[in-house]
């Protein structure tokens, strides 16, 4: 082979090797960048989860403090007021019909207030929710709404009930509380319906009302949008998913689905 032919082949091979080297470098650099990006996203997601977890813990602690304050302080004071009314009733002569009737009415109001405060303290206290269980806690919450007279409520559970983790029960209960609160404040409906479905792979809670509903694409959903962002953030904490089904004049139905791992 002549010198010139050798030069051509050698230069071609060198250029080719350089090209292959550049391609390999770009390939590895992009792979590294992809890996780095995935790690960064994972860290961000973990950080977000930790932040949400902390927020939830702070909120739970605050609610617990309020609950204890209601139970230990306000409730005790109300009990004392009831005792005083009883004493008053005992000292009032039977002839003082008007005064006795007023004292009886006051006693009744105080008794009702004591019951309501105890009920409220129970729903605010996370440990109490864990003790009573999710279904009972939701039922109690619905009874409070029903007692207002503005709504009729219904709770239906289907499937074979199984226990959830305390954290899951707590988060789900707070989500249901928020949904019930939304329904009471915004729906302008008459009926609230809650279903719990103990499925084999998914535990689902559906909260629906027969209210005015809303347009999910419209501008009037700003507030509810924020509310649902908070719901979705809470759901993310327990790997649950939230789906909303609503339209103007068609009521609102929110479904929370939690994947469950069951043995056997």
């Amino acid at each position, binding site marked *: *082979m002549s010198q*010139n*032919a050798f030069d*051509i*082949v050698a*230069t*071609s091979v060198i*250029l*080719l090797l*350089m*090209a*292959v080297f*550049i*391609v390999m470098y*770009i*390939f590895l*650099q*992009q792979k590294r*960048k*992809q890996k780095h*990006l995935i790690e960064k996203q994972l860290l961000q997601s973990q950080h977000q989860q930790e932040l949400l977890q902390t927020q939830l813990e702070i909120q739970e602690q605050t609610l617990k403090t309020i609950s204890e304050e209601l139970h230990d302080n306000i409730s005790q004071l109300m009990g004392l007021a009831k005792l005083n009314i009883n004493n008053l009733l005992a000292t009032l002569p039977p002839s003082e019909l008007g005064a006795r009737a007023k004292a009886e009415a006051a006693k009744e109001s105080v008794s009702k207030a004591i019951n309501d405060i105890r009920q409220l303290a129970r729903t605010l206290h996370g440990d109490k929710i864990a003790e009573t269980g999710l279904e009972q806690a939701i039922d109690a919450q619905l009874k409070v709404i029903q007692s207002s007279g503005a709504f009729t409520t219904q709770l239906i559970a289907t499937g074979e009930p199984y226990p959830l983790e305390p954290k899951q029960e707590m988060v789900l209960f707070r989500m249901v509380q928020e949904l019930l609160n939304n329904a009471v404040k915004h729906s302008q409906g008459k009926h609230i319906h809650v279903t719990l479905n103990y499925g084999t792979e998914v535990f689902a809670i559906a909260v629906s009302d027969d209210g005015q509903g809303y347009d999910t694409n419209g501008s009037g959903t700003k507030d509810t949008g924020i509310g649902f962002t908070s719901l979705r953030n809470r759901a993310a904490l327990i790997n649950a998913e939230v789906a909303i089904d609503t339209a103007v004049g068609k009521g609102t139905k929110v479904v929370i689905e939690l994947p469950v791992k069951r043995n056997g």
Partner: protein
Amino acid sequence: MTLDLANWAEIAAAIICTTCFLYKPSVINRWFVWFLWLTIIIELGGKLSTSLPIVKNTMYSIFTGVEFAFYSIMFLKLAESRTNRKLILILQACFFVFFLYNLFFIQGIGKYNHYSTVLSSSILVFLSLLHYAGVIKSDSVTYSRWSIFFIVSGIFIFYAGTFRIYLSFNYLVTNMPKEIVWLYKLIVSNLNVILYTLFSIGFVLDAVKSQRKT
């Protein structure tokens, strides 16, 4: 007419691209499907017209322009910065001025216009490097679909490898004994196989990624 390994690789790439296009149409396979079949027609036409060198050389020379137009438009579409797009447009204009001048006044119709091939190769190598530079500079991951990476790499390796051979085309044709010319043909043929294999990988990845998205 006998088909060599490069021709078979080219036909395989065209079939893979067509299958991907029919299965899951995308911007990439929609553009490449007609271009690859056109390339096969030109290659087969070249093999059939061996006894008519004027026809063969003219066909290959004109196809050099078509090929350059196709790849440079692809790089234009891939370019993210305005400066790069302007640069590509200027290079395209310069190439076509030279290409037409060469076709009619320098090497002429009837001869293989290898000056145009050399210029086309060097511009395409430069555009590949320009694309890679943009990829390295970018903070985000450019290749969400690795299909583009394999297609650009095929073009880059092929033109970087054949550049020197086409630069000495006259010397090879006039001075080299046939026993040595086969070596160059072997290099070009193998680079063609690499080019079409990388294209095929790109088409498959593009289709797989599209499938995952749906």
